[in-house]
């Protein structure tokens, strides 16, 4: 009994090999799956930010290349931008509340918080599309100048991320409704919250570099 008892599944769980907490950093065996899934997604987010940095660099270089067309100072409507910023910040906050609800396994509050996150994210997207449609209708689309090409690429790429995030959000709500807070679903929720908060960080850079700096004389 004491000499060589087989390792049962309970002790594996307690040793942290399945979702528990192994010490990590080379002691006590590998980290739990939740830790390395989250870490891997963190690496993806950082590489996504590296991609955005290339678009930011292109925009910063081309911001004055208006080819005789309108500049940011004439085009940007900061009231719209302020509303967009408020929507996305509150959406990020609601997403945090959803992750707390998930951590305490409260399905009702998870769905409420995720629904609020979705509505605010969709409002952000609607405001952005309204701005894009207005610019395109006035003939100031991406083909007008290098400045507008860079603007639509940078801001539009962020908008595409938001769109993908909204679809992912609905998927997570459906998965929690259908499957509950299983370990794999919890890992996906972790990755989604990382994604959503990261998009808000990128928006901070966008409203500062593109809109506010574009408006300052």
């Amino acid at each position: 009994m004491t000499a060589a008892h087989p390792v049962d599944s309970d002790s594996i769980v307690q040793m942290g090999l399945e979702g528990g907490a192994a010490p990590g950093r080379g002691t006590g065996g590998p980290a739990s799956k939740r830790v390395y899934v989250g870490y891997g997604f963190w690496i993806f987010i950082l590489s996504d930010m590296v991609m955005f940095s290339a678009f930011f660099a292109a925009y910063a270089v081309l911001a004055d290349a208006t080819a005789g067309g309108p500049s940011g100072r004439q085009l940007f409507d900061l009231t719209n931008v302020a509303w967009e910023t408020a929507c996305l910040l509150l959406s990020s906050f609601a997403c945090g509340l959803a992750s707390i609800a998930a951590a305490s396994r409260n399905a009702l509050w998870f769905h409420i918080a995720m629904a609020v996150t979705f509505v605010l994210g969709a409002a952000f997207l609607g405001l952005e599309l309204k701005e894009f449609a207005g610019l395109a209708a006035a003939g100031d689309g991406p083909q007008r100048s290098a400045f507008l090409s860079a603007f639509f690429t940078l801001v539009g790429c962020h908008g595409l991320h938001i769109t993908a995030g909204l679809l992912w959000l609905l998927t997570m709500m459906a998965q929690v409704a259908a499957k509950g807070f299983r370990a794999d679903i919890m890992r996906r929720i972790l990755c989604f919250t990382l994604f959503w908060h990261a998009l808000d960080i990128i928006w901070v850079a966008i409203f500062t570099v593109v809109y506010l700096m574009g408006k300052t004389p």
Partner: protein
Amino acid sequence: MSEFHDASASGAEADLAPGEEQLDGSGVAHGVRGYLIGLVLAAGLTAASFYVCFSGLIYGPAVPAALVALAVAQMGVHLVFFLHLTTGPDNTNNVLALAFGVLIVTLVIGGSLWIMANLDHNMLPMTRVVEMQR
């Protein structure tokens, strides 16, 4: 049994996933409070950015620098209060990955601006090039 106690005792040193909620301590209220602090700080910094842009409170040529400082501060608030990044040993991997990301982002943006400014400075303006080709 003692092994498990050791494991749980060193559990405080276990690695954490980025963005991990830690509710085992003081529960939901503590978690919500963290997000509320983050929300208030982020909203305050955003408002300050918009205010600095218009008010003329700051000397004109210094406004971009002030905006960058406020944006970096707000990103820090998001990282700490929304993504739960800390300087603790359980977060070393996450912070190191972030530091590498920041390095690459700085090189790409700073390097591009530096090189393009040098080209602007040292080469003929595009209008002159077009004139010469006529």
